[in-house]
C-alpha cells in the first residue's frame, strides 16, 4: 500500500471549536464491536475530499461526522465551517484512517484517488461510501472489489437510480421497467439505447483543454498530493477542482461523470451485474492524449446478444430505451404493450434490495449497490473510455477482465501509478 513520508503527521488542523465541543459520541467499536449494538446506535463518519461533491457528503444523514480531509486548505476551512463543532480537519487521509473511532469513510475525491483510499480504508476496517465513477481503470476496480470483499467491508457507490428516484425521462423509478424485463414480454436479447432521445444527456461540456499554460500552484493546495498516483503534469487550475473531469488522468469527461448514473440501471435491467460486455466499438473523433473529447457512438455487446448503445449525437431519433424482439419501452414508459402500467402491477416484485446504507453497515448486509455490481457498471464506463481512446473494436473477456488478442489495449486496463503509490496491499 501507499507509503509516503508523512510530513503532515500529527499536524492536525485543530480548530478552536473542538475543545469546547459539547457533543460526545461513543464510537460503536468501544461499546463491544461491530454488530453488537442496538439498531439505534450511532455510527460515525469522515469525509475525505470536501470540495465539489464532497460538500454534499457533509450533509448526508445517518452517521455522526467526526472528521473531514482535503489537500486544499480552502476546501477544508469551508467544510469545517459547514460541519460545525466537534469535527476535525486533516490534510492526509491516512491520519483519518488511523482514527479507531471512525466507522464509515466517504470518498468524494476525484476518481484517480478512489481506489487507493478505498483499499486503504478497507484494510483499516472502515466501511465505505464512494463517489462515482468507482475507479479510473478496470484494474483498480478489481483491486477494490478484492479488498472490500476480503476484509468484509460494506461498500456503496454514490449512484441510486436502480433503487430510488425517478429514472431520468421515465417519470417512474426503475422498478416497473425491471418488472417489465423480468416478465419476458419484451423478449430477449435486449438492446438499450442511452441518448438524448431516450432521456439522457452525455454532457460533452466536461471536455478538457488541449493547451494549458502552467501556473503557480496556489498556496492553499498540496498539488503533489492532489495528483497522488496520477502522472505529474504542471499545474493549471483547469486540471483540478470541478474541471478535472475533462482529463483522462483523473476521469473521463461526461462519460466518466454521468456514466454510472445512466448505465448502472441499464446493467441491472439487463441482468448483467456479474458480467461485462464481450465486444466494444466506438465511433468518435481521435482523442487528445490528455484532454477528454467528444464521441459519437459507443456500442457494447454482451455474450448473450444484449447490447448497450451510447448514442452521443442522438442519431437514432426513433430509438426506444429498451428494445427486444417482441416489444419496447421508451421514455415516459411508452410501450407497444397495451395497458402496460396496470399489467405490470400484477407481476411479482424484483428481488428485494437493501437500500439503507447505515442499516447495511449495522447488520453487515451488502448494500444494493455494492463493490461488485458497482465495479461492473463502472467497467462499462471504463470500457467505453478505452474504446474511445483507442478507437478500435475490442474483444473483452468478462471473467479475466482483459482484452483478448490486444495486449497493448490491456495497458489501459492496468495503468501503473506514480511511485510510491500502488494498489498492492
Amino acid at each position, binding site marked *: *500500500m501507499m*507509503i509516503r513520508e508523512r510530513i503532515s503527521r500529527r499536524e492536525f488542523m485543530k480548530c478552536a471549536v473542538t475543545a469546547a465541543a459539547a457533543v460526545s459520541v461513543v464510537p460503536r*467499536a468501544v461499546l463491544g*464491536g*461491530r454488530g*453488537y449494538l442496538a439498531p439505534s446506535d450511532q455510527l460515525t463518519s469522515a469525509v475525505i475530499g470536501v470540495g465539489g461533491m464532497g460538500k454534499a457528503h457533509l450533509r448526508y444523514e445517518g452517521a455522526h461526522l467526526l472528521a473531514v480531509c482535503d489537500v486544499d486548505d480552502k476546501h477544508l476551512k469551508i467544510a469545517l465551517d459547514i460541519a460545525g463543532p466537534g469535527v476535525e480537519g486533516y490534510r492526509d487521509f491516512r491520519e483519518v*484512517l488511523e482514527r*479507531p473511532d471512525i466507522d464509515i469513510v466517504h470518498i468524494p475525491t476525484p476518481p484517480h484517488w478512489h481506489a487507493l483510499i478505498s483499499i486503504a480504508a*478497507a*484494510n*483499516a*476496517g472502515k466501511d465505505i461510501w464512494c463517489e462515482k465513477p468507482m475507479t479510473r481503470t478496470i484494474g483498480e476496480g478489481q483491486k477494490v472489489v478484492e479488498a472490500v*470483499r*476480503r*476484509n*468484509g*467491508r460494506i461498500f456503496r457507490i454514490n449512484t441510486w437510480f436502480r433503487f430510488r428516484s425517478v429514472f431520468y425521462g421515465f417519470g417512474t423509478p426503475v422498478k416497473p421497467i425491471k418488472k417489465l424485463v423480468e416478465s419476458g414480454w419484451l423478449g430477449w436479447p435486449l438492446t438499450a439505447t442511452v441518448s*438524448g432521445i431516450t432521456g439522457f444527456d452525455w454532457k460533452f*461540456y466536461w471536455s478538457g483543454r488541449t493547451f*494549458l*499554460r*502552467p501556473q503557480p500552484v496556489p498556496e492553499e493546495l498540496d498539488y503533489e498530493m492532489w495528483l497522488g498516483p496520477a*502522472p*505529474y*503534469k504542471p499545474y493549471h487550475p483547469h486540471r483540478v477542482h470541478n474541471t478535472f473531469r475533462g482529463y483522462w488522468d483523473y476521469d473521463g469527461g461526461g462519460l466518466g461523470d454521468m456514466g454510472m448514473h445512466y448505465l448502472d440501471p441499464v446493467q441491472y435491467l439487463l441482468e448483467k451485474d456479474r458480467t461485462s460486455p464481450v465486444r466494444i466499438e*466506438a*465511433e*468518435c*473523433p*481521435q*482523442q*487528445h*492524449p*490528455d484532454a477528454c473529447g467528444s464521441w459519437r457512438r459507443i456500442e457494447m455487446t454482451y455474450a448473450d446478444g444484449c447490447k448497450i448503445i451510447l448514442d452521443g*449525437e*442522438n*442519431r437514432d*431519433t426513433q430509438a426506444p430505451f429498451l428494445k427486444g424482439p417482441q416489444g419496447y419501452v421508451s421514455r415516459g414508459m411508452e410501450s407497444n404493450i397495451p395497458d402496460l402500467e396496470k399489467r405490470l*402491477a*400484477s407481476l*411479482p*416484485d424484483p*428481488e*428485494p434490495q437493501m437500500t439503507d446504507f447505515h442499516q447495511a453497515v449495522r447488520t*453487515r448486509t451488502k448494500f444494493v449497490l455494492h463493490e461488485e455490481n458497482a465495479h461492473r457498471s463502472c467497467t462499462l464506463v471504463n470500457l467505453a473510455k478505452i474504446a474511445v*481512446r*483507442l*478507437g*478500435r473494436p475490442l474483444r473483452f473477456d468478462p471473467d479475466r477482465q482483459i482484452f483478448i*488478442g*490486444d*495486449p*497493448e489495449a490491456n*495497458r489501459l486496463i492496468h495503468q*501503473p501509478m506514480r*511511485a*510510491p503509490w*500502488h494498489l*498492492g*496491499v
Partner: protein
Amino acid sequence: MKGIIHSFVPSPYKMLIIGVWLIFFPALTRAEPPQDLSLQKQLEEVVARFPAPSVTERDEAAEEFLRLGQRGVLAACRMLSAPGERDDSAVRFALHGITMSVNRPGSEKYRALYTQALLKALREEDNPEIMAFLISQVQLVGKDDAVKALAGYLEHPRLSDPAAQALLAIHTARAEEALLKALPEVSGDRKVIIIRALGEMRSHKSLGYIHPFTQASDPELREVSLFALANIGDPSSEAALSRFSILASAYERNRASSRLLLFARRLGEAGYRKHAARICQGMIEHYTSPRESQISCAALAILKETLGETALGDMLRAMDSPLRDVRVRALALAEGIPGKEVTSMWLHELPERPEKVQAEIIAMLGRRGDETALPALRDALRSPSPLVRVAAVKAASRIGGVAVLEDLWPLMESREPEEIAAVQQAFLRFPSERVVPEAIARLGHSGPLAQAALLELLAERRAQDAAGQAFDLLSNGEAAVRKAALTALKDLVKSEDIGRVIELLLKTETRSEIPVIQDALVAGALQISAEEERAASILTAYGEIPEERRPDLLRPLARIGGEAALNLVIRETRNSNSRIRAAAVYALSQWPELEAAGELIRICRDAPDRKVLYTALQGYVRLVGEANLPAAQKTALLEEAMEMELGTQEKNLILGGLARIKSSAALELAARFLDEPEVRDRAARIVLRIALPEAGVDGPAEGEIVPILIRARPFIADEQEQKQIDSRIDQLMRREGFVPLFNGKNLDGWMGDTQGYAAEDGVIVVHPDRGSGNLYTEEQYADFILRFEFRLTPGANNGLGIRTPPEGDAAYVGMELQILDNDSPKYRDLKPYQYHGSIYGVVAAKRGYQKPVGEWNHQEVRAIGPRVTVILNGEVIVDADIREASASGTMDGREHPGLQRDRGHIGFLGHGSRVEFRNLWIKTVDPKG
C-alpha cells in the same frame, strides 16, 4: 543491427556537437533544421490532418505520416514545445494519434519504427516535460525494443518514475532485468521507485537485492521494500514480514497485518498452501479486537482461496467469534461450498447457537439455495425468536417460493413490524393470483399492522376488488390503517367509487389527507372512458357543496380536463371569493389542453396582483411550449405575452419558453431582452441555447444568428459558454464566407507600425507609448464587408482606413472612417463629418449609438462599389453613395482623391490613443452580385 545498437549509445562526440549548437544558437534548437524544406512542408500537411475526425482517418493519416520515416517523426517531435510555451496541441494530437494507431494488433512494422523514432527524439530532447510526454507515448507502444533506452532514465530525477511506469507496462523479463540492474546503481528516492516496480512485477530475482532495505532508516523505502517482499511471496520472507514494532501506531500495525495477509495469499497462489493457512489461522487467533475484525475477515477469505472447500472447518469455527463481521464474512465464504452433507452440517449447528447467530446461518442457507434445508427453515418460521423468524421468512420464501405461502400467512399476525415487513416483501415476490384473493379475504379480520401491510400489497397490485374494504377500513379507528387505506385508494378505486371519494374529500378535517384523496378522485375519474363525462359527478357535486370546500374540488379538475370542467374553472376565476378564484387560476394554469391558453393570457392582462400574473403566465408558457404548433405560431403566442408589462420573474418565464423553440423568431424575441439589464444575462444564455445546433431541429436561419450572438457575447460569464459562443460565431462567419483578418496570436498578414500595435490574447492593442502610426493589411480589398469590435479609452481617437494606399493621409488618399470617443468633452467642437463612423470630411454619421467608453462596440462596414454603409451596434449610422456625396464638393471643402480609388488596404490610423480591436472578419463581395 549494428545501426540500431549504435543509435542506443549516446556518443560523447554527438553530445559535444549538440552542446556547441546550444551555446551558439539557443533560439534555433526548437525550430531547426530548415535544411529539408520539402519534408517540413509534407510534415505540416500531415500534422494538419490531426485531430482526425474519425478513427479511420486517424489511421490513414498515421500511415501517411510514418511513410515519412523516422525523420518525419523526429521532425514532429521537434515541434513539441515545453508546457505553455506555445500551443502545440496539433502535434500532440498527431503523435498520440500515431501511438494509438500503431499499437493496434498487426501494426508491428510501424510500431517498431515509431518506437525507435520516439526513443531517438527522447535522446535529442532536453526539456524534461517534453521527455515525459515522449515516455508516456512509449509506455503505450514500447516492447522489449524500448527497454534499454528507458532504463537509461531510471536515475533521472524527473523521469525515473515515468520510465519505471513504462517498464512496468512493458512487463517482460527484459524489463524486469533492466530494473534489477538499475537498483544498486540509483540513489535515494529512485530506489523507492524501482523497488515499487519490481514488487509489482513480483520479481523473485529481486528478493536478495530488496531484502536489506526492509531495515532501511527511510520509512518510505522500508515500507515499499516490505510491500515488494509480500507481493513476491517467497516463503523466505516470512520473518521480515512478521516483525513489527510494538510501539507502532494502530495504522502501522494495520499495514503490517495487511502485508502479511498479502504475503499469505501469494504463498497460497504459489502452492505453499499449508504455510499460507498457518499464517492465516495464526492471525485469526491473534487479532480479536473488534477494531481489527477486518483482519480475521481477510484471513478467512484467504483460507478459503487457499484451501477451497476444506476451509469449511475454519468457517464453522468462526461461528464462535463474538464479532459479527467475522461471522458474516465466514458465512458468505461458506455460501459457495455446496453439498447436501454440508447443508446438514449447518443445520446441525443451528440449535447450538445463540439466536443472533442462528439468524445469520439461516440467511446464508437461504442465499445458498439448497432445497434440503427447506423443512428446517419451515420449522424456523415457528421459532420463538422473532429475529430467527424474520431470517427464516426470507430464506424459506427464497428457496421454497409459493410452496411456503401457507406457512407465511400466520406470521402476518405478528406484533413485530419487521416480521410483517419481511412477510410483505416475500408476498410481493409472488404473482397476484397467489396472494391477492387471500389478502382480500383476510383484510377484514387482521390486526392493524397486518391490515396496513396488506393494503400496501393490494395497492401495489392494483387489486380493485379490495376497494370496498379499503373504504370500510377508513373508519376502523386505527390511524395507521386509515392512512394506509387512504394511500391505497388511488390504486384501488373504480369509476363507480367517485361518489364515495367526493364524500370523503368533503368530510375530512385533516388538511394533509386532502391531496391523497384528490389523487384517488383523479384516478377514479380517469377510468371513465368517455372523456367528456369524466368530470361529470364532480361538477354535479360542486354546485351542492358549501363554498369553503369548493377549492378542494377545483384543483383536481386540471388533471381530469374536459370542456365542461374547463368552463367551470374559467367561470370560477372570476368568482368574488378569493380562495376559489386562486384555486381556479391555479387549476387553469395546470390545465392539460391548449384550450386554456386564451383564458390564461386574459387573466395575465387583468391580473390584480403579481402572484396571479405569475401563476397564469407560467401555465400559459407551459401550454404554448407543449402545444403541437409550428414554431412561428408558438413565438407569436409568446410575443403576445411580451406585450404586457412584466417583472423580472415573468420575463424569465418567457425566456424559458423561448429556449424551447429553436427558430429565428424565438431568437429575435429573446434578443430583445438583451437590452434589459435585469434579465440580460439569462437572455444571453438563452440566445446561445437557441443558436447552438441541435440534431433533428432546423433552428434559426444562420444568417440571423451572428449579429445576435455578438450582442449576447458580453453577457456570457461562464467560460465554457464563452467558448461555445465563440466557436459558433466562428463557424457561422466562415459559412457566410467571412475569413478572419487577424489570427489572434500575432500580426501575421499586417504591415506598417507593428511596434505601436501588438497582438495580445486575441486583441490588437494600440500602445501610444511605443508609437502610434498606421497598421495596414498586407492584402488589398475592393468590395467587401468588414466586421470587427473595438473598445475605446476616454477621449480616444483612431481611424479605419479603407481602399487606401499604405502611406499618406488615408482620409484623403483613401477613405477614413472615423473611430472616436465623440462624447468626450475634448471633442466639444466636432464637425458632424468628424463624428464616429463618418467618412472623414465627406459623409456625416449619426451620433449616439456608441457603447459607454470601456465596453466593446460592434461595427460592420460595407464598401460595395460607390456605396459605403456603416452599422454600429446594430444601427445604420452611415449609408451613402460616395460619388453622390462628393458630386457638389465635399463637406470639408477639401480634395479627396482617394474617393476615386476602387481598391486598397484596410488600416488602423493611429492618433496617439489606446484603442483595442478584435474579432476582425472580412468577406469580399462581387459588386454586381
